[in-house]
Protein backbone atom coordinates (compact mmCIF):
# COMPACT_ATOMS: atom_id res chain seq x y z
CA UNK A 1 0.00 0.00 0.00
CA UNK A 2 1.47 3.36 -1.02
CA UNK A 3 1.52 6.18 1.47
CA UNK A 4 0.29 9.51 0.09
CA UNK A 5 2.98 12.02 -0.79
CA UNK A 6 2.39 15.38 0.90
CA UNK A 7 1.25 17.63 -2.02
CA UNK A 8 2.84 20.66 -0.40
CA UNK A 9 6.26 19.04 -0.51
CA UNK A 10 5.75 17.19 -3.77
CA UNK A 11 6.85 20.15 -5.83
CA UNK A 12 10.33 20.83 -7.09
CA UNK A 13 11.14 24.13 -5.42
CA UNK A 14 9.34 23.58 -2.11
CA UNK A 15 11.01 20.19 -1.69
CA UNK A 16 14.42 21.71 -2.46
CA UNK A 17 13.89 24.47 0.13
CA UNK A 18 12.78 22.03 2.83
CA UNK A 19 15.70 19.67 2.01
CA UNK A 20 18.14 22.56 2.57
CA UNK A 21 16.43 23.74 5.74
CA UNK A 22 16.54 20.26 7.37
CA UNK A 23 20.34 20.37 6.99
CA UNK A 24 20.97 23.86 8.43
CA UNK A 25 19.76 25.81 11.45
CA UNK A 26 18.75 28.78 9.33
CA UNK A 27 19.30 30.08 5.82
CA UNK A 28 18.69 33.45 4.24
CA UNK A 29 16.72 34.20 1.09
CA UNK A 30 19.81 34.79 -1.08
CA UNK A 31 21.37 31.48 -0.02
CA UNK A 32 18.17 29.59 -0.80
CA UNK A 33 17.83 31.32 -4.17
CA UNK A 34 21.43 30.46 -5.10
CA UNK A 35 21.27 26.83 -3.96
CA UNK A 36 17.92 26.12 -5.61
CA UNK A 37 18.67 28.13 -8.76
CA UNK A 38 15.20 29.68 -8.62
CA UNK A 39 14.00 33.19 -9.35
CA UNK A 40 13.38 35.55 -6.45
CA UNK A 41 9.69 35.95 -7.26
CA UNK A 42 8.97 32.24 -7.44
CA UNK A 43 10.95 31.54 -4.29
CA UNK A 44 9.00 34.22 -2.38
CA UNK A 45 5.69 32.64 -3.38
CA UNK A 46 6.80 29.12 -2.41
CA UNK A 47 8.29 30.28 0.91
CA UNK A 48 5.01 31.97 1.72
CA UNK A 49 3.12 28.70 1.03
CA UNK A 50 5.46 26.77 3.32
CA UNK A 51 5.13 29.47 5.96
CA UNK A 52 1.31 29.43 5.78
CA UNK A 53 1.34 25.64 6.29
CA UNK A 54 3.55 26.13 9.35
CA UNK A 55 6.42 24.15 7.78
CA UNK A 56 8.89 27.03 8.04
CA UNK A 57 9.15 30.29 9.93
CA UNK A 58 10.28 33.46 8.25
CA UNK A 59 12.05 36.28 10.03
CA UNK A 60 12.48 39.58 8.29
CA UNK A 61 15.24 41.83 9.55
CA UNK A 62 18.31 43.76 8.54
CA UNK A 63 21.97 42.87 8.06
CA UNK A 64 23.61 46.27 8.38
CA UNK A 65 21.46 48.49 6.17
CA UNK A 66 20.32 45.69 3.86
CA UNK A 67 17.04 43.84 4.43
CA UNK A 68 17.53 40.15 5.16
CA UNK A 69 14.97 37.33 5.20
CA UNK A 70 15.86 34.34 7.35
CA UNK A 71 14.09 30.99 7.09
CA UNK A 72 14.01 28.11 9.57
CA UNK A 73 12.24 24.77 9.45
CA UNK A 74 9.67 24.15 12.20
CA UNK A 75 8.91 20.90 14.03
CA UNK A 76 5.81 20.53 11.82
CA UNK A 77 7.97 20.95 8.72
CA UNK A 78 10.56 18.46 9.97
CA UNK A 79 7.84 15.85 10.66
CA UNK A 80 6.26 16.47 7.26
CA UNK A 81 9.63 16.00 5.58
CA UNK A 82 10.27 12.75 7.48
CA UNK A 83 6.84 11.44 6.50
CA UNK A 84 7.47 12.46 2.89
CA UNK A 85 10.74 10.49 2.87
CA UNK A 86 8.98 7.49 4.44
CA UNK A 87 6.28 7.66 1.77
CA UNK A 88 8.94 7.90 -0.90
CA UNK A 89 10.66 4.82 0.52
CA UNK A 90 7.41 2.84 0.29
CA UNK A 91 7.25 3.59 -3.47
CA UNK A 92 10.78 2.39 -4.02
CA UNK A 93 10.26 -0.74 -1.89
CA UNK A 94 7.18 -1.58 -3.95
CA UNK A 95 9.04 -1.20 -7.24
CA UNK A 96 12.15 -3.22 -6.27
Amino acid at each position, binding site marked *: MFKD*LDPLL*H*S*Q*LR*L*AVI*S*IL*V*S*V*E*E*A*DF*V*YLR*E*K*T*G*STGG*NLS*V*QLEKLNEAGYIEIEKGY*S*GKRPRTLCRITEIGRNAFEQ*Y*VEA*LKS*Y*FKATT
Partner: protein
Amino acid sequence: MEERNLTQNESLEIITRMIKETRNNLEKDGGSIYLLWGYVWLFVSLAIYFLLMKTGDYRMQWLWFAIPLIGYPGMIYLLKKEKRGAITFAGRVIGNIWIVIGVVAALLSLYMFIDYKAFPILFTMALLINTGVAMSGLIIKFKPIIIAGFLGILLSFVILMLNGLDQILIFSLFAVIMLIIPGHILNAASRKVKKA
Protein backbone atom coordinates in the same frame (compact mmCIF):
# COMPACT_ATOMS: atom_id res chain seq x y z
CA MET B 1 13.81 25.66 -10.63
CA GLU B 2 10.19 25.55 -11.73
CA GLU B 3 7.04 24.94 -9.76
CA ARG B 4 5.81 21.54 -10.98
CA ASN B 5 5.01 18.08 -9.70
CA LEU B 6 7.68 15.43 -9.57
CA THR B 7 8.29 11.77 -10.12
CA GLN B 8 9.55 9.77 -7.13
CA ASN B 9 13.02 9.56 -8.68
CA GLU B 10 13.17 13.31 -9.18
CA SER B 11 12.13 13.84 -5.55
CA LEU B 12 14.91 11.61 -4.32
CA GLU B 13 17.42 13.34 -6.57
CA ILE B 14 16.43 16.81 -5.28
CA ILE B 15 16.64 15.76 -1.63
CA THR B 16 20.05 14.14 -2.12
CA ARG B 17 21.45 17.07 -4.12
CA MET B 18 20.26 19.77 -1.72
CA ILE B 19 21.48 17.97 1.41
CA LYS B 20 24.85 17.34 -0.29
CA GLU B 21 25.13 21.06 -1.14
CA THR B 22 24.99 22.06 2.52
CA ARG B 23 26.80 19.09 4.07
CA ASN B 24 29.79 20.06 6.26
CA ASN B 25 31.14 22.50 3.68
CA LEU B 26 29.93 25.57 5.52
CA GLU B 27 32.09 24.91 8.60
CA LYS B 28 35.11 24.15 6.46
CA ASP B 29 35.07 27.70 5.08
CA GLY B 30 36.80 29.06 8.21
CA GLY B 31 40.40 28.76 6.99
CA SER B 32 40.96 32.50 6.55
CA ILE B 33 40.04 33.18 10.20
CA TYR B 34 42.62 30.60 11.36
CA LEU B 35 45.19 32.29 9.10
CA LEU B 36 44.38 35.79 10.37
CA TRP B 37 44.83 34.82 14.04
CA GLY B 38 47.81 32.61 13.20
CA TYR B 39 49.82 35.28 11.38
CA VAL B 40 48.95 38.04 13.89
CA TRP B 41 49.98 35.72 16.71
CA LEU B 42 53.22 34.69 14.94
CA PHE B 43 54.36 38.20 14.03
CA VAL B 44 53.46 39.77 17.39
CA SER B 45 55.15 37.05 19.44
CA LEU B 46 58.27 37.09 17.25
CA ALA B 47 58.36 40.89 17.49
CA ILE B 48 58.17 40.67 21.29
CA TYR B 49 60.87 37.98 21.31
CA PHE B 50 63.32 40.08 19.28
CA LEU B 51 62.51 43.35 21.05
CA LEU B 52 63.02 41.73 24.47
CA MET B 53 66.25 40.18 23.27
CA LYS B 54 67.55 43.51 21.96
CA THR B 55 66.36 45.84 24.69
CA GLY B 56 65.68 43.63 27.72
CA ASP B 57 62.84 46.04 28.50
CA TYR B 58 59.94 44.02 29.89
CA ARG B 59 57.45 46.76 29.04
CA MET B 60 57.56 45.18 25.57
CA GLN B 61 55.17 42.59 27.01
CA TRP B 62 52.40 45.19 26.53
CA LEU B 63 52.59 44.31 22.87
CA TRP B 64 50.72 41.05 23.58
CA PHE B 65 47.57 43.14 23.58
CA ALA B 66 48.20 43.83 19.89
CA ILE B 67 46.96 40.27 19.17
CA PRO B 68 43.32 40.87 20.20
CA LEU B 69 43.46 44.50 19.06
CA ILE B 70 44.31 43.41 15.49
CA GLY B 71 42.64 39.98 15.58
CA TYR B 72 39.09 40.89 16.63
CA PRO B 73 38.49 43.76 14.15
CA GLY B 74 40.09 41.60 11.44
CA MET B 75 37.83 38.68 12.28
CA ILE B 76 34.69 40.86 12.25
CA TYR B 77 35.74 42.21 8.84
CA LEU B 78 36.31 38.68 7.46
CA LEU B 79 32.99 37.37 8.82
CA LYS B 80 31.14 40.27 7.18
CA LYS B 81 33.01 39.76 3.90
CA GLU B 82 32.44 36.01 3.77
CA LYS B 83 28.75 36.21 4.67
CA ARG B 84 27.62 32.61 4.41
CA GLY B 85 23.86 32.90 4.19
CA ALA B 86 23.24 29.80 6.28
CA ILE B 87 24.19 28.58 9.73
CA THR B 88 24.53 24.91 10.61
CA PHE B 89 24.28 23.47 14.09
CA ALA B 90 28.01 22.61 14.05
CA GLY B 91 28.87 26.15 12.91
CA ARG B 92 26.91 27.70 15.77
CA VAL B 93 28.50 25.35 18.35
CA ILE B 94 32.02 26.19 17.12
CA GLY B 95 31.22 29.92 17.18
CA ASN B 96 30.00 29.67 20.77
CA ILE B 97 33.06 27.68 21.87
CA TRP B 98 35.33 30.44 20.56
CA ILE B 99 33.25 33.16 22.23
CA VAL B 100 33.76 31.38 25.59
CA ILE B 101 37.49 30.89 24.91
CA GLY B 102 37.80 34.56 23.92
CA VAL B 103 36.15 35.70 27.16
CA VAL B 104 38.32 33.40 29.32
CA ALA B 105 41.48 34.51 27.47
CA ALA B 106 40.56 38.18 28.04
CA LEU B 107 39.93 37.58 31.77
CA LEU B 108 43.23 35.69 32.15
CA SER B 109 45.12 38.53 30.43
CA LEU B 110 43.43 41.18 32.55
CA TYR B 111 44.28 39.27 35.75
CA MET B 112 47.95 39.75 34.87
CA PHE B 113 47.48 43.41 35.85
CA ILE B 114 46.59 42.27 39.40
CA ASP B 115 49.24 39.59 39.81
CA TYR B 116 51.48 38.75 36.87
CA LYS B 117 53.04 35.81 38.73
CA ALA B 118 49.69 34.15 39.58
CA PHE B 119 49.97 31.54 36.80
CA PRO B 120 52.18 30.88 33.77
CA ILE B 121 50.22 32.96 31.27
CA LEU B 122 51.83 31.65 28.07
CA PHE B 123 51.23 28.02 29.09
CA THR B 124 47.64 28.75 30.15
CA MET B 125 46.86 30.61 26.92
CA ALA B 126 48.44 27.95 24.73
CA LEU B 127 46.53 25.18 26.52
CA LEU B 128 43.25 27.10 26.32
CA ILE B 129 43.51 27.92 22.62
CA ASN B 130 44.77 24.46 21.65
CA THR B 131 41.77 22.97 23.46
CA GLY B 132 39.51 25.14 21.29
CA VAL B 133 41.31 24.05 18.13
CA ALA B 134 40.99 20.33 19.07
CA MET B 135 37.27 20.73 19.88
CA SER B 136 36.62 22.57 16.60
CA GLY B 137 38.42 19.84 14.68
CA LEU B 138 36.37 17.11 16.36
CA ILE B 139 33.10 18.91 15.64
CA ILE B 140 33.80 19.34 11.93
CA LYS B 141 35.49 15.91 11.80
CA PHE B 142 38.56 17.33 10.07
CA LYS B 143 41.73 15.35 10.82
CA PRO B 144 44.41 18.07 10.29
CA ILE B 145 42.68 20.35 12.83
CA ILE B 146 42.19 17.49 15.32
CA ILE B 147 45.89 16.54 15.07
CA ALA B 148 47.00 20.19 15.32
CA GLY B 149 44.84 20.71 18.42
CA PHE B 150 46.03 17.64 20.30
CA LEU B 151 49.65 18.16 19.27
CA GLY B 152 49.34 21.72 20.54
CA ILE B 153 47.86 20.53 23.86
CA LEU B 154 50.83 18.20 24.36
CA LEU B 155 53.39 20.82 23.29
CA SER B 156 51.85 23.42 25.63
CA PHE B 157 53.51 21.58 28.50
CA VAL B 158 56.91 22.21 26.92
CA ILE B 159 56.44 25.89 27.86
CA LEU B 160 56.49 24.84 31.53
CA MET B 161 59.89 23.24 31.02
CA LEU B 162 61.43 26.39 29.54
CA ASN B 163 62.37 29.76 30.93
CA GLY B 164 62.37 33.37 29.76
CA LEU B 165 62.63 34.13 26.07
CA ASP B 166 62.55 30.50 24.99
CA GLN B 167 58.96 30.32 26.22
CA ILE B 168 58.01 33.10 23.81
CA LEU B 169 59.77 31.40 20.92
CA ILE B 170 57.84 28.14 21.51
CA PHE B 171 54.64 30.15 21.94
CA SER B 172 55.16 31.69 18.49
CA LEU B 173 55.69 28.21 17.05
CA PHE B 174 52.19 27.28 18.22
CA ALA B 175 50.73 29.82 15.82
CA VAL B 176 52.26 27.85 12.94
CA ILE B 177 51.24 24.39 14.22
CA MET B 178 47.68 25.03 15.35
CA LEU B 179 46.52 27.93 13.22
CA ILE B 180 48.61 28.63 10.11
CA ILE B 181 49.12 25.05 8.81
CA PRO B 182 45.50 23.94 9.57
CA GLY B 183 44.22 27.23 8.09
CA HIS B 184 45.99 26.59 4.77
CA ILE B 185 44.78 22.95 4.76
CA LEU B 186 41.20 24.08 5.48
CA ASN B 187 41.30 26.62 2.64
CA ALA B 188 42.65 24.00 0.25
CA ALA B 189 39.91 21.53 1.29
CA SER B 190 37.24 24.22 0.91
CA ARG B 191 38.50 25.15 -2.59
CA LYS B 192 38.48 21.45 -3.58
CA VAL B 193 34.86 21.04 -2.40
CA LYS B 194 33.75 24.19 -4.26
CA LYS B 195 35.39 23.01 -7.49
CA ALA B 196 33.76 19.54 -7.28
